[in-house]
């Protein structure tokens, strides 16, 4: 078990080394300061930055989890981006109306957000099972539609603050307070970042310990075998899209309840695609994703200091992250092939001499 984990960690470590190396080469070519880049990247983060890293990694974690649920089912939910937008908008719009007292308001807003995200994802699921539309294409389309749709609703009913549109602010009694966990940090950890921990545990338990999780994994591994084993594959597609969308709905909530207190046209975007990358980095494994999310958030946060400390554009880190994802998937593929061959050899050797069980096969 330990050995497996070590081999599992080898590929991402290798990928990280490759990513940093390629980044260094680019910096050398562009004549930027490599030492400044490396020392900034690998300096210990200040308390303030540490809090940011934790906050960002928690939302990345949620986003990656949403993508991972799809991946385990062999579904590409590229639509996390749109799903969390729709969800945050629904929650923010409702909260802004201030219809219910504090805690109840939060609960209902949560339910609304999850319902909205799940429904948005369900469109793709239903299109897939009823009309055979690839979820990759439909979720890409739904992402774009979500952006325009929320923009329209804001334009129609939102408030203009400065030069951006936003929903009515969330009343203060429905805010979720931050956690002052990091000493000497001027900022706080978002209260709802704990959602990531809860969601991660739930993901792990449901996937590995329950019948439903088994059926989900079985469908992802072989839909033909699933059909022959009494699993309703069409239902599983819709259900897993709905769950994935429900988890995606959580992505924006920590910021909404703990930071922005409104949905605006400038609400953080791009978490869906980074989440996808993090899920790939972590091999859809709950612990792996946690490391991936921390790594991504760490790289992003440290890069914000690059401009000041080393005079290097912080955009360089997107290159590092992109190379990291590409090299990690290549590395995993190579490792997978190697492992499969090694295991077959091992089985053959262990059972080999002259025993009929090994047989020949064409």
């Amino acid at each position, binding site marked *: 078990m330990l050995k497996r984990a070590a081999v599992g960690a080898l590929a991402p470590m290798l990928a990280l080394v490759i990513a940093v190396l390629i980044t260094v080469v*680019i910096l050398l070519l*562009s004549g*930027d300061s490599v030492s400044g880049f490396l020392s900034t990247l690998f300096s210990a983060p200040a308390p303030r930055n540490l809090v940011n890293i934790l906050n960002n990694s928690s939302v990345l974690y949620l986003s990656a989890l949403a993508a991972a649920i799809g991946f385990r089912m062999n579904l*590409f939910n*590229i639509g996390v981006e749109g799903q969390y937008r729709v969800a945050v908008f629904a929650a923010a719009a409702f909260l802004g109306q201030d219809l219910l007292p504090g805690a109840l308001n939060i609960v209902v807003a949560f339910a609304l957000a999850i319902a909205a995200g799940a429904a948005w994802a369900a469109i793709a699921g239903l*299109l897939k099972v009823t*009309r*055979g*539309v690839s979820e*990759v*294409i*439909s979720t*890409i*389309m*739904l992402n*774009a*539609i979500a952006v*325009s*749709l929320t*923009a*329209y609703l804001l*334009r*129609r009913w939102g408030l203009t603050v400065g030069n951006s549109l936003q929903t009515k602010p969330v009343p203060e009694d429905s805010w979720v307070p931050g956690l002052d966990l990091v000493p000497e940090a001027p900022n706080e950890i978002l209260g709802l970042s704990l959602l990531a921990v809860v969601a991660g545990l739930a993901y792990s338990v449901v996937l590995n310990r329950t019948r439903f999780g088994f059926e989900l994994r079985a469908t992802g591994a072989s839909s033909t075998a699933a059909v022959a084993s009494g699993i309703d594959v069409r239902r599983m597609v819709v259900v897993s899209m709905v769950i994935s969308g429900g988890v995606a709905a959580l992505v924006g909530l920590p910021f909404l309840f703990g930071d922005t207190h409104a949905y605006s046209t400038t609400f953080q975007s791009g978490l869906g*695609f*980074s989440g*996808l*990358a993090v899920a*790939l980095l972590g091999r859809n494994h709950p612990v792996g994703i946690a490391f991936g999310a921390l790594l991504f958030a760490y790289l992003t946060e440290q890069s914000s200091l690059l401009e000041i400390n080393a005079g290097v*554009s912080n*955009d*360089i*880190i*997107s*290159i*590092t*992250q*992109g*190379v990291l*994802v*590409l090299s990690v*998937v*290549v590395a995993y*593929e*190579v490792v997978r092939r190697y492992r499969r061959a090694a295991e077959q050899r091992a089985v053959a050797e262990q059972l080999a001499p002259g025993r009929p069980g090994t047989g020949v096969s064409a």
Partner: protein
Amino acid sequence: MTVASEAVALHDGPQQPDRHRRVPVVVWVVAAFALVSFARVITGSHELDSAGTLREAISAFIPIMLAALAGLWAERAGVVNIGLEGMMILGTIGAGYFGFFYGPWQGVLAAMAFGAIGGALHALTTVVFNVDHIVSGVAINIMAGGVAAFLADTWFSSLEGGGPTQSPPVEGPASLTIGPVADWAKEVEDRHWFLLSDAASLLGAVTRNLSSLTVLSLLLVGATYLVLWRTSFGLRLRSCGESPGAAETLGVNVYRYKFIAVMISGALAGLAGGFIVLVGAGLYQNGITNGRGFIGLAAMIFGNWRPGGLLVGSALFGYTDALQLRAGGGAVHALLIVIAIVLLAYGLLLLRRRARRSGVVTLVVALLFAVWFFSTDEVPSDFTRMTPYVATLFVLAFASQRLRMPAAVGLRYRRGEAG
């Protein structure tokens, strides 16, 4: 597989399979033109197809079309290219830098070269390392955004008129103007005659400031058709997307063709980005592609993985986009009645073909569009922006039996596993 059906099939082997009578493309184009003209006359929104709007439409249409063409090359060889957007972004930065320092055509070449590098990377991961096509595409998109932004910061920060996120103005390739014709066309256009004025505005649009890159891009569509469908190179390339196993067993080097196809795809996507910089905006800016790679993908699907189809798809998407920008929601509003009429005709046709349910549904939708048209004065810009995506979703959902994507697109292929 029954004997009876086989026997029958044997007998009508040599006959041509029954096909619907083909209506010439020209008829469709004229009909579409007449409809728009009709809408213009009854609503009085002459901006609907003024020369200015059409010029705008052409410059919105070309990048989408090139992106769609890029998607076509990759998918016909069996590789899904979600990384189009990223390759376009690479094209924009290439065009920005080389266009500014070396000249317009160097900018064009650099855009294609930068895009092709993105394509090569996609080919390397998907074809050689067998990484899932979507995964690779997503990673390339993430990376390309970073590369472009980083290079922009490095290259343009210190330039006069430039900044960390944008280049100074860049000059585009030469454009063509035939003054007298354009002036005469303008005159006719301003009379607002039915059909005649519309034809004149089209003439006006292509005789003033028509970029040579626009002409080149349109030629690329024809060239793509000829290469893919009329040469043995194209046949081999398409066979890799339909059945790589069959291709391999006939001695086709599938890896090579896929690699070439994805490189060309990247170059075309890069050109799409280059067009935006050199002809559309006249400068490089971070994020200037604004999701047009995805619209291109949508246009390709909308066009059923065919050059002619994607031309129609990207023309539609480019036109609505430009109309919104140029003439606002009022002009787009006039299109609602066009849609209603088209749907009405299609619904009646379906009823005549005895497809009762879909016919009735189509008629109801036509009615809804008519109601929308008569009860409002303009279409919100956000709705216009959604159009390509919604239209593509609808096509996928309701006309999927007519869509024919390459059979082996997106599937992993490894040499030696055939047979």
